[in-house]
């Protein structure tokens, strides 16, 4: 077994005890994302209070990596100013795409640093990113909604 880098204790813990799981009202926008290769899905809602992320609620089917990643996302970004949350998303996406060459920004990423090992498993990167992609998409939609779009 050489999977210790992948299945960090912290990931298994978030998987077993997901934080903030469930879909909640009210919310600004919702996003549904699917991983076409495995059929895994996540539905994620973002509630904004002005420029603050008031709540992130989610529901989904998926592997330990994708479930834990949604849980970490919730814990890490709820209550944060939106620009900051977006910067964390960017840092996480960069880490995942970095093939293990990117030094994780611990201060910014918090528990999400535990996913650094995933970057070495290309087939699993999508799992780790699923909820984060939904977050980014929901935020974009929320922006559109607020700006009076569809």
């Amino acid at each position, binding site marked *: *077994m*050489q999977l210790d880098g992948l*299945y960090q204790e912290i990931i298994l813990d978030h998987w077993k005890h997901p934080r903030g799981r469930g879909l909640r009202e009210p919310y600004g926008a919702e996003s549904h994302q699917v991983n076409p290769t*495995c*059929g895994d899905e996540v539905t994620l809602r973002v509630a904004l209070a002005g420029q603050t992320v008031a709540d992130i609620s989610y529901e989904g089917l*998926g*592997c330990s990596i994708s479930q834990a990643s949604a849980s970490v996302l919730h814990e890490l970004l709820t209550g944060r100013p939106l620009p900051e949350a977006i910067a964390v998303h960017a840092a996480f996406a960069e880490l995942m795409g970095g093939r293990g060459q990117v030094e994780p920004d611990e201060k910014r990423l918090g528990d999400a640093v535990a996913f650094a090992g995933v970057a070495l498993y290309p087939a*699993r990167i999508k799992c780790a990113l699923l909820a984060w992609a939904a977050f980014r998409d929901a935020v974009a939609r929320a922006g559109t909604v607020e700006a009076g779009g569809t």
Partner: protein
Amino acid sequence: MMDTLTAPSLDPATVRADFPILSRQVNGHPMVYLDSGNTSQKPQPVLDAVAEHYARHNANVSRSVHTVGTEATEAYEGARAKLARFIGAPGPDQVVFTKNSTEAINLVAYAFLAASVGGGDPRFRLGPGDQVVISEMEHHSNIVPWQLLCERTGATLRWFGITDDGRLDLSDLDTLVDERTKLVSYVHMSNILGTINPTEPVLARAREVGALVLLDCSQSVPHAPMDVTALGADFIAFTGHKMCGPTGIGALWGRGEVLAAMPPFLGGGSMIETVTMEKTTYAAPPTRFEAGTPPIAQAVGLGAAVDYLSGVDMRAVRAHEQQLTGYALDALQTVPDLRIFGPATTEARGGIISFALAGIHPHDVGQVLDGQGIEVRVGHHCARPVCARFGVASTTRASFYLYNTTAEVDALVRGLEQVRKVFG
């Protein structure tokens, strides 16, 4: 399919020595490759045939009078003849080379579209009220082409269901396949449940109502003797990479008369009789359906693959996999909280076993197995409706071939214990 008692047998150790990749390590363990339903490994004679072709006889086919071109053409057409014999086709002209099974199925779907839009043979003309019948057990490659075709012609898509024990539900055969049905297209052996489906009742009903029948044999041709003449369908589709051959090649077999009635699919070099800017006339099958430079070296490799498989004897391949499947079904039932999807016995069942470990996602199962060198497939296996039918998003799947052993099944079972430890 046949009686294992009288079947010739094979020695997996001897077979394994022919497959160079099988001696590799994965994550520090000897590789246990249980993903042949996805793609098979290739024996040395196939690698040699491809390399030898490029290094000695490479040229384009059907276009040159020169020596190298003639050699390449003979090699390519020779491969077609070998493949025809391998599946019991009356002649090589009924074998159309495609890039994979998926293209073979789409080729037939597009014949329907062309005839419907352009006015071809009535058997291929579809419009509102007409029906195409498939099943819930299909690979996406035998679903999406028909969805697209029905959307584009206004025809209706209908399907057979699946029983709880993973069999095709043919109880509504007579109402599902009726006078409005133009085509029945379904899978010969399921790539996710391992089920081997009956053909006689469906063919009989299709004949009654005048519908054509396509069998997706992507998982059956590689694993058991095939005789299309005895089978009696109108088309079968299969793919080289799952039968010890190269990637980039597949085949459509069609009855001669039916192929001859089909309009061209891809237009281009070689499929023509004569071309003017105003009008083109087309070659007879199979050439009509092979536009452009075909997968020449891949055909040569596939020819070597069927030589190899015939040398081992397809009856022995089938018997070996049946034994292995029985062994695996028993062994997996010893794993706690493991649920098998599909038939529980080896009857009318091939060497593919999908399962779930309660509470543990297939991705995680597959990942931990991979950590032990065990390569299984996880996901929906391009058969999402089957997953939906059984209420899961994905499964873990072990699939066997002639080179697999009971020791590898034991490794899988041990590996699953490890999975349960990590995620317990």
